[in-house]
């Protein structure tokens, strides 16, 4: 989906040892593959099937997504901050497209 556009919310800074909340939202219709069009043909499945978050190259959180996740998938999770660095976020589409975002965090 050409117009899939991610939004990510990460605090700009945190103290070492803090557990922060990260929120992500991406525009995607998440076509379940279970619906039929007016002519009765099955509308092919087209979803984001995987999400991954890493911090300075280390995996923090990921998920495997099925068609039962709502359109415009929202994900909220936590991360433990031990040093300053960069969070990277990656969404994988059924059609092979990859959408990426990154956010820096500083230590207080």
């Amino acid at each position, binding site marked *: 989906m050409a*117009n899939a*556009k991610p*939004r990510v*919310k990460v605090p700009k800074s945190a103290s070492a040892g803090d557990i922060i909340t990260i*929120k992500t*939202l*991406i*525009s995607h*219709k*998440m076509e379940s593959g279970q619906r039929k069009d007016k002519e009765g043909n099955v509308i092919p499945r087209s979803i984001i099937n995987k999400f991954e978050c890493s911090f300075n190259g280390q995996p923090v959180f990921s998920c495997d997504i099925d068609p039962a996740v*709502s*359109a*415009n998938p*929202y994900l909220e999770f936590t991360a433990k901050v031990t040093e300053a660095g960069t969070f990277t976020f990656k969404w994988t589409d059924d059609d092979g497209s990859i959408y990426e975002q990154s956010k820096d965090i500083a230590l207080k």
Partner: protein
Amino acid sequence: MKKFGKVGAVLVTLGALSAVALAGGPVDQQLVIDGEIEMITRTEAPDGHPLDEVISGWHYRTGETRALEADTFENPGMLFVEQGEAAWNKIEGTEGKSCASCHGDASESMAGIGAQYPKWDADSGKPINVELQINKCRTENMGAEPLPFDKGGQKELTAYIKHQSLGTPVSIDLDAGDMQSWWKKGEEVYYTRTGQLNLSCASCHEQNNGNYIRADHLSQGNINGFPTYRLKQGALVSVHNRFRGCIRDTRAEFPAAFSDELMALEVYVTWRGSGLSVETPGVRQ
């Protein structure tokens, strides 16, 4: 309760069948967006309004849905507002212009503007809404094709423009041009029963707001949150789409988007929500 007859009784029966039909009325809570913008979601009705208090549809939704609107990050409608921002800056047409070429930074040039639409348009001798104003700009100033109803980024751009009025109370000028007669025509549409179900707008949104139609908690039908993100569609829904949907649900033929009938209805229904903050993009069921 004028114009409340047999169908009203059916509505009440349908409501009573639902498991959650017993609670009623709007929720008593204040909408504060991002903990900063205090929204007016209940206010005294303007003179001549059939109800005493004007209440935003936000009050009729569940706690989870209300919370979505209170946080501009969690509100999925904001994804489309961002797409509208991209549309605002996109150069189109023979004149090589975008909206931004003339109007600059929308957060300044469009602040409060969306709260005043529909407005009188002397050129066409009709009221004009944000969607048609965009099209007028496109054809007259940009040399671009008008956007077809609900397509080509129309909902997103409209939402982006109206979002610049987030928190501004809805206030339309009914003294301009011939707005009075359009208001009157809109009132007529509002109270006219249509379809096999023989319902008017008023049957649900005036006489039964706070009651349930099956499991749906009926609001006053104010449109201060449009284009609004509907959980059902998982997408932005425009005012004229919702008008048509409501009329279709009465099992009637429904008028075309931006037809005189629906433009009049938009004038009238916008006025019914006078004083409520613009919530675009609202979040509804």
